């Protein structure tokens, strides 16, 4: 779960000042409607604005995700209320909401990525709002694989940008709209330490890698190496230690990730 100051809800504290070392640019605050027209990836690629807020939903019980907002609709996958690596509570971005005939609230959410030895789930699905907690995040991560840079947005304002290592042509970083599934504090001996922001993206080439489902993560370079600004990874996004440490202190589960 993210901290209140990271994700503002209706009763959250006021916005803290910008962290030391973070740079504010003069980009205008976006209107969410703009994103609905072109999508964040397109918007980011075009240098357009990012939505200042993203609604999230945290699951307090395993939920079936359905194709349509109805109890009779087909179940496309079942979403566990915890994440497999850290046990953190599952938090999903909310894309839409609606009421069914019985007056029950349904949420269209972005779904976690493929699990090992499981059928790949669709990108989105509908879940009931029962036993969930809705939150809001002000953060957004945008990765430009062409420029090999990662940008961090808060309240729709670009705060910082970092050079990154992205996937090489044979194992590219998959473009699309994803979210952070888990914020993992890796042990120093682990590859990619000290932190890994595990995303819902999965490699389009590697169905299995190092015992995992080919999950795309934003992590450090420990025991991996590589030069920032190059495309040499297996699909993950590698950052410098300072950058990933800074991100890990601020980015929690559910934060949208746009890869273009």
């Amino acid at each position, binding site marked *: 779960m993210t901290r209140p100051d990271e994700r503002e809800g209706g009763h959250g*504290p006021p916005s*803290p000042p910008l962290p030391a070392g973070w740079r504010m640019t003069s980009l205008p605050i976006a209107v969410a409607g703009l994103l609905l027209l072109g999508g964040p990836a397109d918007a980011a690629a075009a240098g357009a604005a990012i939505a200042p807020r993203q609604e999230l939903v945290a699951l307090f019980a395993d939920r079936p995700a359905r194709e349509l907002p109805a109890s009779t609709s087909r179940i496309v996958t079942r979403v566990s209320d915890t994440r497999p690596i850290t046990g953190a509570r599952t938090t999903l971005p909310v894309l839409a909401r609606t009421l069914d005939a019985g007056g029950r609230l349904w949420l269209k959410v972005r779904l976690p990525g493929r699990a090992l030895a499981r059928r790949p789930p669709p990108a989105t699905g509908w879940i009931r709002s029962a036993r969930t907690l809705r939150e809001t995040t002000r953060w957004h991560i945008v990765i430009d694989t062409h420029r090999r840079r990662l940008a961090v947005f808060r309240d729709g304002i670009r705060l910082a940008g970092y050079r990154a290592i992205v996937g090489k042509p044979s194992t590219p970083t998959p473009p699309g709209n994803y979210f952070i599934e888990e914020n993992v504090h890796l042990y120093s001996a682990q590859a990619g330490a000290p932190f890994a922001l595990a995303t819902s993206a999965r490699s389009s080439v590697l169905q299995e890698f190092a015992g995992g489902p080919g999950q795309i993560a934003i992590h450090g370079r420990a025991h991996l190496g590589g030069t920032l600004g190059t495309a040499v990874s297996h699909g993950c996004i590698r950052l410098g230690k300072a950058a990933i440490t800074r991100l*890990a202190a601020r980015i929690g589960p559910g934060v949208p990730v746009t890869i273009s």
Partner: protein
Amino acid sequence: MTVRPRAGMSLKSLTKPLSAAPARGALLNVWLLGLSGMLALVVLVGVAWAAQPPVGLGTADSFAVLAGSTVTNTGPSTINGDLGVNPGTAITGFPPGTVNGTIHAADAVSAQAQSDLTIAYDDAAGRTPPVAVSGELGGLTVTPGVYKSSSSVGLTGVLTLDAQGDPNAVFVFQVASTLTTASGSRVKLINGAQPCNVFWQIGSSATLGTSSVFVGNILALTSISVNDAVTVNGRLLARNGAVTLINDTVTAAHCDAGTTPGGGGTTGGDTTSGDTTGTDDSTTGSDTTGTGTTGTPDGGTVAPGDGAALLTTSPRSVAKRIARYGIARTVSGRFKALVSGVLVRRVRFFVDGKAIGRQKRSPFAAFVRSGAGIHVLTARVHFTDNTPSMTLRLRYRVAADTSIALARRPRAPGGFAG
């Protein structure tokens, strides 16, 4: 940190602090609370511990300084008690030194005192069960009992003797070789400990560092050397060798028959020992309200009925940062609030008015967890005597986004694409 000892337990293996269990004769829990490492570690061990009677000094009790060969003084030392030498005869340096007692040079009184000193020395050396100590005593807090070192012992910083409210609590230190205290070192008595009940049986010689404050009766087999400006609340008793003084103050400590449990110090016309409250530099950032006495500097007297307390933190760096910068700079949102003092009965801790802990026995501590923003830590201290309760406060500021609390350690391999 504090350790209550059991027989045969090694303090070296436990690291710092140590303390002997109170002499109740019952099974007691053993605590090891690490504060110098800025982390608390608690170990519970059942022990059986018997009360130690004081070491009888006999006629040596009236002596503040007693030597076997010579007593040599330089400068205006003050001896509050008798001064003697036997079988040697030489006593030099008085004046300029002052003896507020009687000088016995190779007479029958000093001979009897030396004889009684031998008995007392053997008594102290034979006390059991001992707790093994070695090396450095500084930073330790010990409770009543017998502490034994098979080699030399040093003291740098503060050694705290905690009587745990028992004015008859006895501390016996058996040192096989030498005792050496560093400059500015201090022996501190708390919770009713009396210097008359502290005994240092030294198998060789003792050397007290410049400007140190020492408490207890040194029973040395050979010699005792006291450097410049040392305050001794106890006795310097050397069986065979010399006692050397340089501008020092030695006061023969006598037990106060009227002392009640929990009393902060001794009386009986003596200058009391280093009982201590409010001397920590980390307290400067706290506000104190109430009428309680805030304590005395090293070696000061704490009169019965004068409770005192100070509020600090663990790690100390938090309190020091608050003291130095107030809320102009931020501190970690996680630390331990700590109240130390004398005659403290119970402490209640609050953060921003919300109760976070309550302690009825030492250590009076509570863990503090604060989010971003300005907070006020409050400790409401009640005393065992009629000292009015006091409220201690620390106002601090915690920065936003200073932690990595969002991240969690993996419970399963990630298997990222890399």
